[in-house]
């Protein structure tokens, strides 16, 4: 076992879920913990004078339940679930730095990705600033 986890970042998109199998393989072979990370971007704030009633908070408990329902593809992988809030790429990087990750695994295009681009904005942001190798799953 080693202390350098594999961080699999998910936005619950099909692209990120495809990457999960590869993340699990890496974690198993390197005997690393698989950190299944979701970053909740949060709601944009807006004010509309006196009629502003605020925006509904994202349902963190629902998000946590969705994340918790995701299990590694491989049965023999140690894993944990993790939720952070903020800018997705920045938070993924922060997690990788804090945990001294062995690798970050992301899908090439998440929910916000424009398919004709090589990489979605989150994958690109992660690749730009990652302190560790990044596995991009485009298939």
């Amino acid at each position, binding site marked *: 076992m*080693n202390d*350098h986890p594999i961080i699999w970042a998910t936005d619950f998109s099909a692209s990120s879920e495809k*990457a999960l*199998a*590869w993340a699990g*393989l*890496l974690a198993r*072979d*390197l*005997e690393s913990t698989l950190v299944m990370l979701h970053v909740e971007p949060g709601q944009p704030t807006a004010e509309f004078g006196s009629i502003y009633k605020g925006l509904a908070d994202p349902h963190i408990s629902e998000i946590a339940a969705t994340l918790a329902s995701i299990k590694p*593809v*491989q049965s023999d992988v140690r894993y944990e679930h993790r939720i952070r809030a903020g800018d997705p790429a920045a938070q993924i990087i922060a997690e*990788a*730095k804090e945990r*001294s*990750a*062995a*690798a970050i695994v992301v899908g*090439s295009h998440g929910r916000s990705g424009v398919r004709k681009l*090589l*990489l979605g904005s989150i994958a*690109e942001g992660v*690749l*730009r600033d*990652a*302190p*560790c*190798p*990044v*596995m*991009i*799953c*485009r*298939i």
Partner: protein
Amino acid sequence: MKFKTILFPCDFSTSETAALEYAVELAAESDAKLLIAHVQEPAPVYAEGNFYTGIPLPDYEVIQKTLANIRPSRPGVRYEHRLLSGDPAAAVAELARHENADLIVMSSHGRSGFGRLLMGSIAEGVMRAAPCPVLIVKPRCKLRSEEPAKALAR
């Protein structure tokens, strides 16, 4: 499901050391075969009328020796070399397909990449055409140091 064949494309630049180390560690831990590949780009052809004297062909013997010198630093890793010619990104993707590679591990930048760009053009082209996931290792990722990416150090 497991990593059986890991492809490491290289262009003999020093920026690739971290990627090779990572590929070797992963191949060792996964008991996968490591394919160390180099793609020789054909020399550009010029025709300048009477003055054309031809461009010397790359010396394949030298290239072959250079490639053969790139070996896993860790004993017990099965590896083979592949020397190809053509467009690097296309040839790497094609080799991955042909050899059923499960993973390509490569440096974000080789000899031709501008460090300030996110990825070199070859890494980008490989990612575009690859039939499998691509693990991009930046040159500054160190495996056995106090850097955050000490990765596989145990």
